């Protein structure tokens, strides 16, 4: 990830790559349920269809916040690709989530409110773990820059294995996958914060979901260090893990989710921080 041209290309193509990942995911999920599944390009068909649908906006701020969610998430992905500051990346991502939570609260729909509540709770669940991983990375390389991790000769995975496990545990919360999909829960809150969007404004929220995949898989890729192939293998394994988990588990409620993240994932990340701090690994 050193070449500036490659970086700019990746940033520009990030939504398209994310769409392909989403399409592949729907295909894989269907195959796991013995279905044939939609075509690989299905997310793009959805995208083009929504471009043509009538826009029904609740109020202009709500629609604007949806667009802002997409843009700020794209910024987070861009900084992550360029190898910028880890803390900045986390905060940009938090900003995008905060914006969509605000949008959820700005309508009068009760489902939107519930979804926003639950989104805020899932932020509470995964954010501390991410920050501790960032601090561990700082202890390891002496800088908050992600590029130092991309460049590390020994893969980061072998230096901080527990951090990787903690990341795997919080990924379903972040991607809104079962068992931790309370914030989207189609059967309960009908999609949560994205409920009131329609037309091209829904498109922004829908595409932001694809960018989320890119964001998450880049975080996983980071653990491969300078070894690109190890990074790609990790991404592939994580992809299979997330889909298998999504298909085989049922939703837990938000209290159980919070308890799991704060009592299991957070201590694991913390032990990893201690190990890195004292240079055990």
């Amino acid at each position: 990830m050193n070449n500036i041209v490659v970086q700019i290309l990746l940033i520009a193509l990030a939504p398209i790559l994310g769409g392909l990942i989403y399409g592949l995911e729907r295909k894989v999920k269907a195959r796991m349920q013995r279905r044939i599944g939609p075509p690989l390009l299905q997310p793009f068909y959805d995208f083009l269809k929504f471009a043509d649908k009538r826009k029904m906006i609740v109020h202009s701020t709500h629609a604007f916040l949806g667009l802002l969610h997409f843009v700020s998430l794209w910024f987070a992905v861009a900084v992550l690709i360029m190898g910028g500051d880890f803390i900045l990346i986390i905060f940009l991502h938090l900003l995008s989530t905060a914006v969509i939570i605000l949008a959820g609260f700005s309508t009068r729909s009760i489902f939107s409110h519930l979804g926003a509540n639950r989104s805020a709770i899932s932020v509470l669940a995964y954010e501390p773990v991410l920050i501790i991983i960032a601090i561990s990375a700082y202890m390891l390389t002496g800088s908050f820059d992600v590029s130092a991790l991309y460049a590390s000769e020994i893969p980061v995975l072998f230096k901080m294995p527990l951090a990787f496990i903690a990341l795997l545990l919080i990924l379903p919360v972040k991607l809104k996958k079962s068992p931790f999909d309370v914030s989207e829960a189609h059967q309960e809150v009908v999609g949560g914060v994205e409920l009131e969007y329609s037309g091209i404004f829904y498109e922004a929220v829908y595409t932001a979901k694809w960018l989320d995949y890119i964001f998450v898989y880049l975080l996983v890729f980071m653990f491969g260090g300078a070894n690109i192939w190890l990074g790609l293998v990790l991404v592939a394994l994580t992809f299979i893990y997330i889909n298998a988990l999504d298909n085989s588990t049922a939703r837990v409620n938000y209290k159980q989710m919070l308890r799991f993240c704060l009592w299991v994932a957070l201590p694991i990340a913390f032990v990893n921080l201690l190990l890195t701090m004292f240079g055990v690994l």
Partner: protein
Amino acid sequence: MKLNKYRKKSPWILHYNAGGCNGCDIEILACLGPKYDIERFGMINSGNPKQADVMLITGPVTKRSRERLVDIYSQMPEPKVVVACGSCTCTGGVFRGMYNCEGGVDQYIPVDVYVPGCGCRPEQIIAGVVEALKKLENKTKEIEKSVRLEVAPVESDNQINRREIAAPINNGGKPSVFG
């Protein structure tokens, strides 16, 4: 650029039960399951009127559900199509003439495709939706113009319309149309 052809590649479904016996609903869910798997055609049961294109309705419209029906219908952004699944949705079926419901859904909202059968087979539902998608593809921007709907009394055909009989009990003798 004409985007019309993508409409039939990703029709998102909204499913509403307007008081049916659940027979047709189960058949609709069977369509979504592994055997018939309509996700092959990109259909998702979205459950959200603001993002749906195809509205699948089952059941005769009961008095409790008719306001919600019109409400949900008007929340769907155009272009949209409505598929009436099941005999009782098309004409009233076994419920026709009962005191608590009207004969069919098309007394309240425009219906594009009628799927017969009590309950209708999943194959029929898929055929009906495919038929509806042809209509969806040809819808133009004309339908996005808002029109004012007039409340007009439902003309009673030769079915027993017990609504007028029940009216005096509810609101002191005034004929009740639409609540």
